[in-house]
């Protein structure tokens, strides 16, 4: 739809102008787009509107945290004989823009380091014997190519960048129009923070933010600033409804732009707890808002947004935590667990140093080696003179001085519990699986393992808990579990396999735990056909073996069947019969497997 495309392109251009005017006061921008001409055109547009001298640095998340912060400049240090700082990337971006590509792959401490610099307006360098605070003020543009649900910008960054733009609907023909029609020609004014905003407007904006379920106060601050910036860019000295509506869409677009997509599924799941008489007015409100949006092809007015916000707040109240849980499912990664794929301990993040090479060809840590060598220089020079050997000009290094970098590869595992949620005993089983997941998390903090839960029932399967290390998140996500219906074993196995492959791609070691009684009656295509269902399951099991995914099968049937054993054999999985699979038994089983692996 080119119409949709040009509307979102216009919004993207507006966002670029706002960013260029607001800069670090609004943190930055989250750009969801695939690499391509559209994204490049947008970045060029942003660059055009920045002062020509502004720094523009592009980095990827595999830059070591040390490079972000800065550290000892060895060449200079040796030359001057005095420690010299090599400024990090964050301070090199001072006054300019830091473009973080593949931002969705950022690891937790990488994101946290950038976030801390944004909050404090500077970098705290406590590295290699250097200690200082380097002020820096940059604008962050996060390029997010996340394709899957489980690849999302870490919350530490998305919380700190005010604007959010999605270019996925924009086509190449849309970007020919490089004129931002949402703005007048007025030049941006420097004193935008003083733009007037009425108390009612403040109240309305804040109510909308709260109603949309945004908890972070940074969002509230961002909405106000962006509203003022839009007003200022339009040459207006006070914020109007239009400005505020635009701001809301740019700051919390997920919530505003597509209420129909976002709210409906939640509503459907929430039929029971919601009082019946609440539904009709609710629905009509929303469809009204929807139609106005669609008909005009323009941005919805503030009023529409507020109506939608109120409606979603009504849903929110009646649902309690489950909507939030659902929202968390969409944003599953609290800490970035993606990052570098590491199979051996030869790679990973630096953890301390050692005087013997941890493996042949280990990387030398030069600052540490220098430190080790430095105190002996005078003695060695003297020794050389006394021995009549030529003295070296600067540094006399011996083998005993060498210090090596010890690296910690990610040897973390992810236990994927795949649970039969069908039929009458579903709730009980799910309850045990949930308990097992939580127990595992509680026991696994030292090993830093993650746990995920996949459930299958009816005609398909769901990732009920995306891989996580957080007990808090697990509790939230597993709070609203549902069971019942047919038994699509093969679908569940496919989902678990998919998750296992993704996990492995993120550098973690998956362990799939199938909790099943071996019965299955729904084939992969969703039809009720017992024999096809079984052959599908066998086929998927073969896929597990082919890909070498570690798995265990927990037979939870009261009378064990041969099918379960044969599936386990096809998967190359260990088989355990635990007719009364309780949470403790399952978790200790998994833990013993994790230890062994």
């Amino acid at each position, binding site marked *: 739809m080119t119409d949709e495309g040009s509307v979102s392109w216009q919004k993207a251009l507006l966002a670029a102008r706002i960013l260029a005017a607001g800069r670090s006061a609004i943190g930055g921008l989250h750009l969801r787009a695939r690499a391509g001409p559209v994204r490049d055109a947008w970045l060029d547009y942003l660059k055009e509107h920045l002062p020509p001298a502004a720094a523009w640095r592009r980095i990827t998340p595999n830059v070591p945290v040390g490079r972000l912060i800065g550290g000892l400049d060895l060449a200079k240090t040796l030359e001057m004989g005095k420690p010299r700082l090599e400024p990090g990337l964050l301070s090199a971006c001072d006054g300019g823009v830091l473009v973080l590509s593949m931002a969705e792959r950022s690891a937790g401490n990488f994101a946290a380091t950038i976030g801390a610099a944004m909050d404090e307006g500077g970098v705290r360098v406590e590295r*290699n014997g250097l200690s200082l605070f380097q002020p820096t003020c940059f604008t962050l543009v996060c390029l997010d190519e996340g394709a899957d649900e489980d690849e999302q910008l870490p919350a530490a960054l998305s919380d700190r960048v005010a604007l959010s733009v999605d270019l996925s609907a924009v086509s190449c023909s849309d970007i020919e129009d490089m004129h931002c029609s949402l703005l007048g020609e007025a030049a941006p004014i420097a004193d935008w923070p003083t733009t007037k905003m009425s108390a009612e407007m403040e109240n309305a904006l804040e109510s909308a933010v*709260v109603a949309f379920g945004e908890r972070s106060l940074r969002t509230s601050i961002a909405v106000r600033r962006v509203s003022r910036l839009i007003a200022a860019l339009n040459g207006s000295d006070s914020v109007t409804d239009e400005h505020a509506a635009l701001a809301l869409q740019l700051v919390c677009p997920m919530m505003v732009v597509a209420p129909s997509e976002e709210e409906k599924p939640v509503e459907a799941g929430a039929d029971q707890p919601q009082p019946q008489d609440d539904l009709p007015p609710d629905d009509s409100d929303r469809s009204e808002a929807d139609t106005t949006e669609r008909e005009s092809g323009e941005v919805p007015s503030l009023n529409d947004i507020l109506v939608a916000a109120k409606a979603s707040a009504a849903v929110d109240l009646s649902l309690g935590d489950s909507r939030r849980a659902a929202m968390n499912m969409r944003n599953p990664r609290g800490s970035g667990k993606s990052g570098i794929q590491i199979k051996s301990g030869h790679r990973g993040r630096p953890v301390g140093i050692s005087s013997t090479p941890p493996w042949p060809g280990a990387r030398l840590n030069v600052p540490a080696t220098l430190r080790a060598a430095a105190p002996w220089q005078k003695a060695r020079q003297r020794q050389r003179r006394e021995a009549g050997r030529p003295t070296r000009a600067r540094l006399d290094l011996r083998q005993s001085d060498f210090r090596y970098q010890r690296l910690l590869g990610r040897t973390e595992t992810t236990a994927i519990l795949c649970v039969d949620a069908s039929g009458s005993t579903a709730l009980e089983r799910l309850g045990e699986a949930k*308990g097992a997941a939580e127990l595992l998390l509680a026991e696994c903090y030292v090993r830093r393992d993650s746990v995920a839960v996949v459930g299958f029932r009816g005609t398909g399967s769901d990732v009920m808990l995306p891989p996580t290390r957080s007990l808090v998140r697990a509790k939230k996500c597993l709070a609203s579990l549902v069971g019942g219906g047919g038994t699509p074993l093969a679908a569940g196995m496919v989902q678990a396999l998919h998750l296992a492959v993704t996990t492995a791609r993120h550098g973690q070691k998956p362990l799939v735990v199938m909790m099943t009684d071996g019965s299955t009656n729904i084939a992969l295509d969703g039809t009720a056909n017992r024999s096809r269902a079984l052959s599908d399951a066998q086929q998927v099991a073969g896929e597990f073996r082919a890909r070498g995914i570690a798995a265990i099968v927990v037979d939870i049937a009261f009378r064990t069947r041969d099918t379960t054993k044969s599936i386990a054999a096809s998967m190359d999985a260990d088989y355990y019969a635990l007719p009364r699979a309780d949470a403790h038994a399952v978790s200790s089983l998994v833990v013993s497997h994790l230890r062994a692996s």
Partner: protein
Amino acid sequence: MRDTDFLKPNGGHKRRHAQGQPSPSGNDDDRSSAVDELLVPMTTAFPFSAIVGQDSMKEALIISAVEPSLGGVLVMGDRGTGKSTAVRALAALLPKIQTRRSCQYNCPPDQPAAICQTCNGLDGNPVPAIVAQRAPVVDLPLGATEDRVVGALDLEKALLSGEKAFEPGLLATAHRGFLYVDEINLLEDHLVDLLLDVAASGVNIVEREGLSVRHPARFTLVGSGNPEEGELRPQLLDRFGLSVDVASPNSVDERMEVVRRRDAFEMDPDDFARRWRAQDGRLRSRINKARQTISSIEVPEETLRLASTLCVRLGVDGLRGELTLVRAARARAALDGRTHTDIDDIEALAVAALAHRLRRDPLDEAGSQARVTRALKETLAGDGVD
């Protein structure tokens, strides 16, 4: 662009100014050298009293300022709730400590650390004058390297003169003050290991690069983080005296007040700080007074009994929970200007002092805070207290 060639501060001590400031009262007179000015972040901290709501966090921080032996505060909660703002704001409220000018170890003048060259006059200079300065709040950033945390060989001296000198790290700088770790659940394990031992023993022992050094490092550990990033190791959890949870305010009015103050602050930080100076000053003198009176606060039998019954009922291991609870209660009473502790104090502080010490039962839906509250209610209603 900015000249990055100035370098480097004399180890820790200049950092302290960067941390202990800004003093709105302007009586920190020992910030003078030009290098210092460059290193000091030129930002004014948000005034502590201007923080809206979040009473449990504020109370826990103030109590830890009154009673440093509590073992610090852990603040966990939603993003953007002002956790780190509050900790940095606390710096301006801390009482002053006596030490010598340019001492890198914050030695008390009457008993300097054996290693301190400055205070023992071992560096050839006369022993410098005694100064009173605000207790330091030292940031331990996630990207810190081991050598800067525990201290290491002074590279400059080693390169220039071949002298083997120890350059103290952040742990020395934080002595008698606060050590703050933001996003503490993301801190690398090897740094956590370093912290654990020092936080328990109060002594930093360095055995590296041919150095063998020990110096006192007693600090109040303050950590903050978002629980969704992951769990904290139980050993580290145990080092904290109080642990509080913060959540974003839900009421529109409260949120608007937060946002308004933030905007006003950023528009003109100095003016904003000036407007809150009186309130901050009152709070500071309350803390100072409480520090003086805390040793004379009586702990009546019933408070003690309630605390220990509660701990027994909850199955809290060891005495640390009970001790922390009673100490915190005394600090609270001192802050209130009372002469003895009350049942009230225990009630108010039980969750913060005990919830994080419980053995975690992941199958318990309600969580450990609810368990503490429940046990408290039962104890108060039952035969625990007469």
